[in-house]
């Protein structure tokens, strides 16, 4: 491993933009999953992935500005995500009990 890279490589620090671009990539993956997947549980997991990506941005800027407020905000996002997951999964349970399916194409009662 050490012969593969020059020793300076291990002293490099990470640019701020790298963290933000990683967050953007994860958010885009989340949106793509939200758009293209047909299972209601996977769509719900995509929302969690997007929340995680936004949390990474908050923590990165908290590091950049040297203040702890961004971490507090991501803590609140986490708490709200937990509440949202509990209610959302209860809704999924109820929908499955009534319709016996998890494909989101079948949930079109409100269409037209």
């Amino acid at each position: 491993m050490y012969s593969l890279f020059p020793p300076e490589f291990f002293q490099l620090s990470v640019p701020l933009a790298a963290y933000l671009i990683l967050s953007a990539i994860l958010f885009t993956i989340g949106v793509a999953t939200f758009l293209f997947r047909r299972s209601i549980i996977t769509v719900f997991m995509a929302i969690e992935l997007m929340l995680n990506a936004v949390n990474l941005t908050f923590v990165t800027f908290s590091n950049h500005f040297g203040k702890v407020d961004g971490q507090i905000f991501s803590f609140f996002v986490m708490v709200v995500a937990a509440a949202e997951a509990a209610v959302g999964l209860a809704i999924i349970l109820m929908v499955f009990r009534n319709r016996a399916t998890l494909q989101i194409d079948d949930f079109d009662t409100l269409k037209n």
Partner: protein
Amino acid sequence: MDLVLFLTFALIAVACGLNMALQRHPVSSALSLIGVMVSLAVLYVLLGAEFIAAAQLVVYSGAIMVLFLFVIMLLNAGAEKLTKKAGTAHFLGLPLLLILLGLSSWVITTATSHAKPVKFGAFTAGGPREVGWELFTHYVLPFEVTSILILIAIAGAYRLANKEMD
């Protein structure tokens, strides 16, 4: 060592995210999402946010994902059927997403070109003591409001999942 750790766990996060998007079975997607969350917790430690990293492991990959897996296994959810009902999302979705990613990356790189790089150990105010101090002094009202929100969520989840409904 910062760059090595960042690259390793960023690659793990992106690979697990793509795996989540591409797997057909919900259990595989959920396990990939746990991979994303754990590698994000390592990145939080690199950013000096120890408390948030611990909360990420406990709340997200612990509680929320266990809830997800519990519901998947309770409903006996199998692999999803692929349908072509998405319509415009199938044709416009991917190009527009790539445009979004490209534009946001461009804005990020131009806006933070003069920012100082992230160095492990430069920011140490992310421990439980500092976060708790800030949480219970400046942010005590949002904290209490959140507790009411969770109470409502518990009541709502119980009401929704109750068998004797209507």
